[in-house]
């Protein structure tokens, strides 16, 4: 310990965190990432019923050969892309309605109805309600019910992300464009949208990853022909963990961590 450290210690200066605090923080990160690392570890371990300590790529090879898993993965990507487009378009439109336009004057109840209630009501309740709704309509289960359910589920998040951008938008830029003779459509296309691009992109990425990982709504409205990956994984985990599930999970984690990381950066 240097003299300076000694003096600081005697003075009781609080420059650095205490060792206990640093340790607690490190343990919390271990808690957050430990289980994710366990999935990665298990996907490369030869043990079928527990850790054996031998490296293998067998589960990845098996996974690649299992058409049920690959089909489910592709279906989830497909649903995610459709949901992403629809949800983002709706979110941009709704965000302007909520954050910009003067009419209706009282936005509170509308924001509660559009964003807050869907965010707080239990998702399982919505999944069951949607299942009953489409059964009553005679539509049953399948691709379209999943997409509709996911759009309703991702829309509030996407709207929040875009609305934050609309609120922060520097209106003087748009006014300047109008003063220079640009009409509203041109102004929107050339000035407003580019300024909003990071938020719109973040909203799109969030919508995709939320849909891609969504389980409960899909669980109730997916059917024989259309089983998205999370529902497939649920089936594998519920029965008796097949090690292939670790391999496909690593693929899912890589996709969603990459997208969530990008979206989080964009949103700042």
């Amino acid at each position: 310990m240097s003299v300076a450290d000694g003096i600081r210690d005697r003075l009781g200066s609080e420059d650095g965190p205490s060792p206990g605090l640093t340790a607690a923080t490190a343990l919390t990160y271990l808690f957050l990432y430990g289980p994710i690392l366990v999935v990665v570890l298990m996907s490369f371990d030869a043990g079928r019923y527990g850790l054996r300590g031998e490296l293998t790529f067998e589960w990845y090879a098996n996974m690649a050969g299992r058409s049920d898993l690959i089909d489910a993965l592709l279906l989830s990507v497909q649903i995610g892309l459709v949901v992403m487009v629809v949800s983002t378009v709706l979110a941009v439109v709704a965000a302007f309605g909520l954050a910009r336009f003067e009419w209706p004057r009282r936005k509170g109840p509308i924001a509660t109805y559009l964003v807050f209630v869907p965010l707080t009501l239990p998702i399982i309740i919505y999944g069951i309600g949607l299942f009953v709704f489409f059964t009553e309509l005679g539509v049953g289960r399948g691709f379209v019910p999943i997409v509709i359910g996911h759009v309703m589920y991702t829309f509030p998040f996407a709207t929040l992300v875009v609305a934050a951008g609309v609120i922060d938008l520097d209106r003087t830029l748009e006014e300047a464009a109008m003063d220079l003779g640009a009409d509203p459509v041109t102004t929107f296309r050339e000035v407003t949208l580019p300024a909003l691009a990071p938020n719109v992109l973040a909203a799109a990425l969030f919508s995709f990853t939320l849909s891609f990982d969504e389980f409960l709504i899909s669980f109730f409205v997916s059917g024989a022909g259309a089983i998205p990956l999370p529902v497939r994984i649920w089936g594998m985990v519920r029965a008796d963990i097949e090690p292939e599930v670790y391999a496909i999970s690593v693929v899912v984690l890589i996709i969603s961590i990459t997208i969530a990381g990008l979206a989080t950066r964009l949103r700042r």
Partner: protein
Amino acid sequence: MSGEPSHGRGGVRDRLLEWSDSEVFKGSVSLGPVLALLTVFYAIPVALLLVYSVFAGDAFESPLTLEHFARFADLSAVLSLSWGDLPYIRLLARSLGIAVVVTVISLAISYPITYYLGQHAPDRWKVLLVMLVIIPFWTSYLIRTYAWIPILSSNGFINSALGFLGLPALPLLNNYVGTIVGLVYVFVPFTILPMYASMDGLDSHLIEAARDLGASRWRVFREVIFPLTLPGALAGGLFVFIKCAAAYVTPALLGGTSGRMFAQVIETQFGSAFNWNFGAALSVILVVVVLGSLYVAVRLGVDVKRGRGLGGGGL
């Protein structure tokens, strides 16, 4: 900015533009479609459960009844306080109890990490460290939940380590321990993120001043940090509570019998028991509990908007 002039494109476009420039037009065109979509595909499906809960069988085709709610809360059993005859109320009470425990543990975990991130984290690492908390929030909670099976099972990581040390194995999976651990894991970002916002905004001079005046670390926490971060903690805790009260995936994968929760019995009514009306009644009760908790919290002054500021999360 290449604002092309639009003169001379004809009168129709100009007139349309002028008409579409009114605030009423813009407001209704931007909010109308989404309000309609949300009503048809969100509000009506949820309301349909309310309808089902008060019919004996098929909605609008069978007699109105309160029998499903009576099955949940048998009045004679309630009045005579015979809990044994009230399995659904006991299950709801246990679910809410688990939700309270998970909320308290999540808050306890959140204090040190958010204090570190808000007050001590080096600036160049801070963004990355906060991002590392947010990212799991946006990844599959199904995968993050089942990941605990190889950790908690009888021959899993923890029990292997205990066995290696010569200690007896602990029952951690397929009971309430599994449910609580899994729920804390999935929901702890809901408390970390709003509390981080409070800790980050906390003026460190207050802490230094308290220390200089001779306050112990514990006293600084109790009298400075705790009260100033309470709004964030309450908002985050509220969200953990309402999300846990309706948890399905975690108790179903990790909870066994003693960790069973209310949403599971709802799913059973639709999945295997085929009693939609009773399931709908239980759903209505769960929604009343969730919205009721929110209402009470808002009435008590909890700033619920903090709860969804940074995060969001696929839950």
